């Protein structure tokens, strides 16, 4: 038995049919609001608040926006203010239990990264209030051509961070109790039989590693490719639309803007998702732009994922969800860039040897 299977087999688990699983969603809805993947258009998925458990999509490649939208909303009012009397109030953030259902392992891993970003140095109350009582039910998935989470060290069946986890088996699922919170949720649900003792055997190598090097070696590669010509290669076709930033599950940069009502008295201070691929992001007063070229911006984006924060947090800040590649209108793939960089790095190493 491999290490992963060993770990999975330690959890108490139940066999559950899809029909019962949907009843379980209904049951969860009685405990707290449930958020899960839904169809959004012809071939697009998004997390939505569940109204009807039949509409929850259990098998999906990836949602468009990552789960971060619930913890760092795309637009969020930070303050309501009054210009005339110089007063303000902070909108109350209700600290409530929310259940996130059918979440993939890379998504959970991305939250761990966001947790780091919003609590290192200053701990941000807005983020923490939303995050504090969140409960997660994970599900394994079949990787598509854009997924590469395995390449950055995150298994499809990685259970870390989840309270419950679903593994497809036959025509149903194994429901695994990961935490005490998960156990308590399951206990109240009348639809389950006794725990199942069948041994779990995951299928090994569900997908090949798409990055040439083991993820542990990537930070070292990035020590040597700052001046690589690879950046220019991709800058030629990149159009700087910012999609990769906005949909990235670990990106969290934002902009803050004041907006005033028509009475010219009341207004809001609002933050919006922003991205370092956008032209004006690194502009300073006087118009100077320290990352004016797309090559520099692309480089900054990748260094943020594989080196800068990684050095401090000891986690790669790319989780391999593949959103940046899948949704890129130009078709630039993250793994292609990284593999090109590795090639460049190898050439450089070889030259040095000679």
């Amino acid at each position, binding site marked *: 038995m491999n290490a992963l299977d060993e770990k999975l087999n330690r959890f108490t688990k139940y066999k559950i049919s899809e029909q019962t699983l949907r009843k379980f969603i209904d049951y969860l809805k009685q405990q707290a609001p449930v958020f899960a993947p839904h169809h*959004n*258009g*012809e*071939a*697009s998925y*998004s997390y939505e608040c569940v109204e009807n458990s039949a509409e929850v999509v259990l098998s999906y490649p990836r949602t*468009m*926006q990552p789960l971060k*939208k619930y913890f760092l909303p*795309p*637009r969020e009012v930070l303050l309501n203010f009054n*210009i005339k009397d110089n007063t303000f109030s902070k909108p109350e953030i209700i600290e409530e239990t929310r259940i996130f259902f059918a979440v993939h392992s890379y998504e959970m891993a991305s939250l761990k990264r966001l947790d780091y970003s919003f609590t290192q140095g200053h701990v941000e109350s807005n983020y923490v209030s939303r995050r504090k009582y969140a409960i997660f039910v994970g599900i394994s998935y079949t990787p598509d051509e854009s997924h590469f989470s395995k390449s950055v060290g995150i298994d499809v069946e990685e259970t870390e961070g989840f309270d419950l986890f679903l593994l497809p088996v036959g025509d149903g699922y194994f429901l695994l109790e990961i935490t005490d919170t998960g156990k308590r949720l399951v206990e109240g649900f009348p639809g389950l039989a006794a725990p199942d003792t069948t041994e779990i055997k995951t299928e090994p190598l569900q997908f090949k590693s798409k990055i040439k090097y083991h993820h542990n070696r990537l930070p070292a590669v990035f020590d040597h490719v700052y001046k690589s010509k690879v950046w220019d290669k991709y800058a*030629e*076709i*990149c*159009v*700087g*639309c*910012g*999609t990769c930033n*906005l*949909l990235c599950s670990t990106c969290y940069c934002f902009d803050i*803007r004041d*907006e*005033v*009502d*028509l*009475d*010219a008295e009341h207004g809001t201070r609002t933050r*919006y*998702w922003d*991205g370092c691929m*956008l*032209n*004006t992001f690194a502009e300073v007063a006087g118009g100077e732009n320290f990352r*004016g070229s*797309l090559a520099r911006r692309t480089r900054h984006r990748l260094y943020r994922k594989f080196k800068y924060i990684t050095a401090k947090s000891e986690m790669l800040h790319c989780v391999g969800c593949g959103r940046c590649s899948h*949704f890129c*209108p*130009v*078709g630039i793939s993250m793994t292609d860039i990284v593999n090109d960089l590795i090639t460049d790095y190898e050439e450089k190493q070889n030259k040095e040897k000679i």
Partner: protein
Amino acid sequence: MSKPRVAFFDFTSCEGCQLNKLNLENDLLSLLELVDIVEFREAMDDKAENYDVAFIEGSISTPSCVKRIYDIRRRAGVLVSLGSCAVLGGVNAMKNLHPADWVQEAVYGDDKYLFPSIPVQPVSAYVKVDYEIRGCPMSTPEFLHVLKSIVLGRKPEIFDHAVCVECKLHENECVLDKGMFCLGPVSRAGCEAICPENGQYCTGCRGLISNANVGGAIHMLKRHGFSEQEAKKKLQMYSSLNKLINEAECRHA
């Protein structure tokens, strides 16, 4: 602070931007609290000598337009161009892509000399423009944003990022992925991605983002199955005066 005196003027255009202001039904009364509208030909008889803020709709396309815009600039404190026609030349400017004579003759035949017309230009080709509100039609929230900013005495925020940004904030399904054409990745936002939001493609009515990678955009559209010629033609719908597009060559097969 006394109420700013605001005037609206229309040049060569469809007047849809002006109509959009009349469509501010819910906010019209608040707006009238905020400013004095002193000239608005489409809606009122009054004429004024001068204005704190002049909003200009439409592009400049006849000799009499030129005279009138100089005159308005002289009388105006702040001048704001409104909508694609005023800011970019807009759809009107596609005329410039054809020989002037051909165009005149095509419409009026032998009577073409009765109606003089000069190459279409945006307002900024003739006078200093303080702020620009893009869009076809302009978006009313953005118009109100600029107006409120002027009333408060601050510079309005004008966005210079791609429509993709707002489209992704709305989590709209990507229209390129649906096999449709789209200029969202290189077109300026500020519209809340209203076209993709409604299942339609972005036609680039706000022009391109600055520093746009036009060659890259053409490459992108080819990747999605559109010819270079078609890509260029669609890029020119609103931005036919943009040299970047007219000179763009796609270096990628």
